[in-house]
């Protein structure tokens, strides 16, 4: 399927994208990741399964899901070996799967890695260590080889939602509900530094609202990206999408980008393109969704693609030429019962939008 080109160009980007396909799903998929060989797309969602799509044929083929999780699967990542997928769920379980063969195998799991919802999982650059943060307010480090607990860092005062491991493996950073980033020493398990991004938190009517959704180091470890938004209310969870670039040496925000208006919401996911750009996806209320191409040196996105609803995740093919966005079906909001013609109560789904990434010359010829 050919779809309209990306729109609202703010500057001449070195790359462009165009939507080429949409993969329909029957459930909501809040997280997608390509396998390291680019042959399989993995999706975590609200139904405790990890779905897989074989992408080697002309049309994507839905494979048997990975089962064994509970609740929601909102974070997963591949180890550098390219064969091991690690994933966490909202009941506190941490799993490592061998996904090299068509029939996946659960290599090991920790049933109660946290007491309740594990919000994020990070893998060290060398693949030896995993870091997790959960609703129990702990930051924990695990051996990627066998799931053994390596270290428990001190408890956060407030719920941490994101975690990242510095490429030197000596430092971990977590970001909490109040927009506070903590730099932890792996050796001492103590907080080394703190940075408050207080606009990424909002309080009203007995509710704290988080604004932090993404925490990532760059390859060199010199910069840390903290993305999400500046929440502006409670019930509808509106906010202004925001990305902070944090200088690691000084642990200060060296550059901050806020895009759009309060209905645009939050950056839910972000990936780096080898050409130096970020692709970010946003989810707003009601129904707003965007794919943004961001040059870290520009204040405004190079373009916005706005023809999707509530985008939750983005993943880049290893060849850098394709990306996929998990979005939401149109009209996902609605009061009362939404039923089909047979009277069956309808849930929502997550169409997966596949985009080609083009150099400008390719774009013109395409």
């Amino acid at each position, binding site marked *: 399927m050919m779809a309209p080109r990306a729109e609202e160009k703010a500057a001449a980007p070195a790359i462009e994208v165009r939507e080429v396909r949409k993969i329909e799903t029957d459930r909501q998929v809040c997280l997608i990741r390509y396998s390291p060989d680019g042959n399989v797309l993995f999706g975590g969602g609200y139904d405790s399964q990890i779905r897989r799509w074989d992408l080697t044929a002309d049309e994507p083929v839905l494979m048997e899901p990975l089962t064994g999780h509970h609740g929601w699967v909102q974070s997963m990542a591949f180890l550098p070996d390219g064969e091991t997928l690690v994933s966490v769920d909202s009941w506190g379980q941490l799993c490592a799967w061998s996904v090299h063969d068509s029939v996946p195998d659960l290599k090991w799991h920790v049933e109660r890695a946290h007491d309740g919802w594990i919000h994020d999982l990070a893998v060290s650059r060398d693949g030896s260590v995993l870091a997790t943060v959960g609703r129990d307010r702990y930051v924990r480090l695990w051996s990627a080889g066998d799931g053994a607990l390596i270290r428990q860092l001190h408890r956060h005062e407030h719920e941490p939602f994101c975690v990242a491991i510095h490429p030197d493996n000596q430092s971990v950073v977590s970001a909490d509900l109040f927009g506070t980033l903590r730099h932890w020493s792996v050796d001492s398990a103590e907080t080394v530094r703190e940075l408050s991004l207080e606009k990424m938190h909002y309080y009203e009517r*007995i509710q704290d*609202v988080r604004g932090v959704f993404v925490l990532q180091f760059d390859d060199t470890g010199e910069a840390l990206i903290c993305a999400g938004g500046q929440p502006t209310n409670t019930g509808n969870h509106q906010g202004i999408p925001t990305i902070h670039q944090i200088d690691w040496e000084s642990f200060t925000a060296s550059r901050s980008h806020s895009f759009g208006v309060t209905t645009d919401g939050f950056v839910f996911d972000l990936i780096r393109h080898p050409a130096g750009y970020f692709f970010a996806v946003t989810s707003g209320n009601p129904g707003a969704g965007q794919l943004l191409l961001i040059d870290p040196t520009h204040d405004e996105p190079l373009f916005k693609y706005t023809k999707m609803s509530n985008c939750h995740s983005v993943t880049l093919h290893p060849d850098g030429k394709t990306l996929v966005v998990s979005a939401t079906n149109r009209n996902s*909001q609605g009061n009362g019962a939404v039923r089909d013609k047979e009277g069956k109560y309808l849930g929502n789904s997550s169409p997966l939008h596949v985009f080609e990434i083009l150099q400008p010359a390719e774009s013109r010829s395409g």
Partner: protein
Amino acid sequence: MSCESSFEAVPMKSPACNISQHNVSRRRILGTTAGAASGLGLGALGGLVQPAIGEELKKQEKQVLLLWLDGGMSQLESWDPKPNTQFGGPYRSIPTSLPGVHISELMPRTAAMMHHLAVVRSMETVDNSHSSGVPRMLRGDPTNRGVVYPFWGSAVAKLMGATASGLPPYVWVKPGNGGFISKYAGFLGAKYGALALGDGKPPTNLVRPDDLAERDAKERRKLQQLFNQRYAVGRRKQWNEANSYVYDVADTLMKHTRLFDESLLPGKDRERYGRHDFGRHTLLARNLLESGVRFVQVTSYGWDTHGDNFNAHSSRVPKVDQTFAALLQDLIDRSMMDNVLVVMMAEFGRTPRINGSVGRDHWPNAWSMAMTGSGIRTGQVLGETSPDGTEVTSHPLDIGHMFHTWYTALGLESQHAEFVNDGQPLPIANDEMAPVKELLS
């Protein structure tokens, strides 16, 4: 919805009883005691009342606490979890003190006290809009007779009157501004409106200024009453009643300013209830009930979680859990459970389906509420929903059933008692419904 055949009407204590009879009886009692009790807390009454009258008074001194979670708390993240299902959300369920009954992991303190509660999981109401749903629920969705029915608090204020404490019968503790909300009284007349304590504070300028002598204040009040009487000539009685009443309320409250002084509350209690608005306001509500207010409503706003429902409930529900468990323990410890009916509810629940903003929308189709205290058979969960939470599968109940049940629990004969509006008799609850026998002790 009509009264379901599965519910039997509770046998009435007398074949016919109207509210004026209740009022006569009550006035007789208060006529004996009110003078002595005026200005004193309920706790002080014990020594002033003759034993026989004391027992009668005790029966009459039923009170109500309504905890209103405005916007609609999710039943799936509270009373009726469906873990590990398509719409179940991220949370686990936990066992409770009631064998076999689980509720959301967000409510561990309440789970330990579940045997003190009755939870209804089968609320099936008709309105999915806030603007019409809130008044519909707070009025008990009576049959439309072309009049504006009072909110529950106003109705109780009329039906049962103030207690011997003389404190205003309907007090609403809420965030934001306060004032006297006369419109809630509907056809009863403005006098039965809600005295709203904004952020738990008494009305501004309540306390007599230092430079106004008490004698002068009394003279002013007398003069004002004369003006009011003159104004009332030729006008509807309710108009002047309300106007005078507000000043009477102010007079009464002036004698009870200590009620609103948070600094006088034990620090331990403030910690137990929580220092957030809901905790502070519910602790105040406990004090108001102890002091003799007939009907107290505590409102928590912001439950309309169309976005980020799950983190929102993770932030909100534990606060409610903390406060609610502290309240229950206090009511038990202070032997107040026999006299105080406690209800926690909203205008509806939230959709099973999760929208693109990771929120849940409005859902009157199958939701939950909890109650305890006076007249309620606790230690039970009534009604069921389907495994995915999308429909009620047993004991469907509407708000009309609940109003009958609560009135009955308060000792009123809900199917016979009537309001009288300009000579028109009006049932106090939906006359197509009946009390839920299973919920009554």
